[in-house]
């Protein structure tokens, strides 16, 4: 019954006027960037991080979370109507959704995408609420060695699941960790790698890295590609599903929710992986699998439920263990730290407003999104009429003002330029930026836990293998690495990611 009391408390927090307002703003922005290709949740959240500092931590996180799951709703709209995925996570929705639109069933596809997402979101909300305190109990028994191994596992998996070469991704993770070492050493106060620059004594700017590598680099890459936007095919049609379509969607949504919830919790997972996993599953097991390729409603219902479930369950490792599962969650860690909150198992106890308020706001946000999306679909499609040449200077200016306002220091602006150019270079060389960001966030925490673990064990590294939790984590990490060396598994992953975008 604790759960209900806690959720009640959460709704009390989420339903205050200010939090409702920011939840709505987050959902609207999320839907907008979901609809617009060329700007994703990572760039948007880093863009808006500075704006949230004036708000209480709970309000800030509620809004930022709204952007992430709101983008999953918005992404499906353009995927279905225009064969144009607004987000990576809706790439697979184009496969069946656009075919349905061509058959004149766009309305049905949009409806099931929104309703499936809403159902999945509600389930995921309960899942987060139920598993949060449970996992927190487990996490509190973790020693420093266990923490270190857990973070190590998280980093390895985020690299393994990244696109492209695993070795390069691990390289980027380690580079991120090393970059996290810049600044003042916590224990001795010594300045490391700061070149005597006072601005670097707090470390390299987290927002500068995120904005540079995801915001600015993204603009540059988009400008190099010529604009390609297809015209909307036909009318949306009736939003009502037929009884047959509805009946076929139910199992797909249920499966999608399950797959998405599981893949969301996984470190390195998230919405994109989940929607793809669900699509593969539907193609194999659903009753309508013979219709795939001609507009099967299962191919919309499953992935859309999955990506929304995953975008919420990926908060579980963050809220209970303080470990970000993907780049968006890494930004959340950054937001929390800047707000003076150290993410970790103590957050449930120490910040009940934040924890339960966020969970409750997810459900509220999903409800808002249902209303924002279905009746107002025409408004969002019109948004696509905004040409990119008007969008990129706006994004750039918002980045610049935001990064400056962090500390009222132009050094941060120049830092962002450097990371923008570096991010462009990385993307040309197929070096993944997301693992680097996660490594950067986890690096300082890992160092602290490593130091503590080794101090407690009197310098004996065997402690990592002697503690059962730690040994298990390292074992899983080793298996994941070895699996990637097997040519079959690697080929499977490559083709899976290639199709999934």
């Amino acid at each position, binding site marked *: 019954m604790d759960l209900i009391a806690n959720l009640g408390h959460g709704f009390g927090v989420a339903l205050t006027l200010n939090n409702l307002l920011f939840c709505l703003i987050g959902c609207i922005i999320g839907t907008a960037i979901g609809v617009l290709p060329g700007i994703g949740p990572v760039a948007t959240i880093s863009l808006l991080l500075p704006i949230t500092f004036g708000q209480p931590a709970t309000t800030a996180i509620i809004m930022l979370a709204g952007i992430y799951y709101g983008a999953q709703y918005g992404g499906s709209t353009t995927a279905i109507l225009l064969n144009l995925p607004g987000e990576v996570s809706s790439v697979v929705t184009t496969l069946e959704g656009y075919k349905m639109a061509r058959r004149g069933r766009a309305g049905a596809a949009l409806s099931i995408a929104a309703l499936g997402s809403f159902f999945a979101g509600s389930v995921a909300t309960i899942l987060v609420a139920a598993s949060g305190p449970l996992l927190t109990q487990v996490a509190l028994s973790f020693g420093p060695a266990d923490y270190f191994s857990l973070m190590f596992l998280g980093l390895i998996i985020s690299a393994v699941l990244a696109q492209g070469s695993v070795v390069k991704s691990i390289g980027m993770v380690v*580079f991120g960790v*090393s970059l996290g070492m810049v600044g003042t050493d916590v224990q001795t106060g010594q300045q490391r790698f700061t070149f005597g620059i006072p601005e670097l004594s707090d470390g390299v700017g987290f927002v500068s890295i995120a904005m540079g590598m995801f915001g600015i680099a993204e603009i540059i890459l988009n400008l190099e590609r010529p604009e390609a936007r297809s015209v909307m095919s036909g009318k949306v049609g009736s939003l009502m599903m037929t009884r047959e379509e509805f009946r076929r969607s139910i199992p797909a949504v249920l499966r999608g929710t399950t797959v998405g919830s599981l893949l969301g919790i996984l470190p390195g997972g998230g919405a994109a992986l989940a929607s793809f996993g669900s699509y593969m599953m539907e193609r194999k097991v659903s009753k309508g699998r013979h219709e795939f390729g001609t507009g099967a409603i299962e191919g919309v219902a499953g992935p859309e439920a999955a990506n929304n479930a995953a975008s919420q369950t990926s908060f579980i490792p963050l809220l209970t263990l303080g470990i970000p599962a993907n780049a968006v969650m890494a930004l959340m860690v950054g937001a929390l730290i800047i707000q003076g909150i150290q993410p970790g198992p103590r957050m449930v106890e120490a910040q009940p407003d934040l924890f339960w308020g966020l969970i409750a706001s997810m459900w509220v946000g999903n409800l808002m999104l249902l209303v924002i999306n279905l009746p107002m679909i025409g408004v969002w499609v019109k948004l696509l009429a905004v040409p990119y040449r008007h969008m990129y200077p706006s994004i750039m200016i918002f980045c*610049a003002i935001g990064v400056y306002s962090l500390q009222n220091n132009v050094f941060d602006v120049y830092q962002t330029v450097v990371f923008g150019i570096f991010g462009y270079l990385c993307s040309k060389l197929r070096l993944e930026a997301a693992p680097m960001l996660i490594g950067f966030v986890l690096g300082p925490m890992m160092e602290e836990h490593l130091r503590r673990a080794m101090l407690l064990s009197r310098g004996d590294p065997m402690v990592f293998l002697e503690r059962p939790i730690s040994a298990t984590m390292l074992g899983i990490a080793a298996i994941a690495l070895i699996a990637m060396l097997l040519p079959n598994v690697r080929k499977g992953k490559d083709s899976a990611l290639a199709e999934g975008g």
Partner: protein
Amino acid sequence: MKLNTKDLISAAILIGFAVVGLWLNTDHTMGTARRMGPGYMPFLGFAILLGLGVIVLILGLFNGPDPIEKWTGAEIGFLLAGAAAGTAAGLVASKVGGWPSAGWNSLGIGMFVGCLVPSIIKSWRPLFLISAAFALFGLILEPLGLMLAIALSVILSAFADETHTPKGVAGLVAFLCVLCWAVFIYELDIRVPVWPQF
């Protein structure tokens, strides 16, 4: 040999960072495994980075071919010219005294000039004109205020896309000035000069 150019360059970057990091890290006390000094974790990190870089290098010799887009002579030339001009401008600015050498202005001037020179070549424009516009924003924000910073950097960045029209850019500048004033000054009240300071 199937050279994978992208992987080889990636390896060079990773190894480069690792070597520089290890070298800089010699300033920090290592400590022992039991009592780690400030240099211990960076040493571990950069050493692993070096190892991974070498693996990428070795793999890159065989898993290609994956060539990068060829740069033309002009592209290379202006890139080098930009690097030289940027460094020179930055050094000169740091010496002349007054505004150019105050605070981070010399860094900003160097960055701005360095990015502006390669943008003479059209294919470099998306990358370097956006970067230059960003640096320009940092340069003029404090002395000339937010409104001029928005106007000038939007105008500069507009040259990165050929479909812009002067009228459209003017409209965009006006729109962004109003929007940013409403969001950042009126609503969030960030401490930033709005108009030129005399």
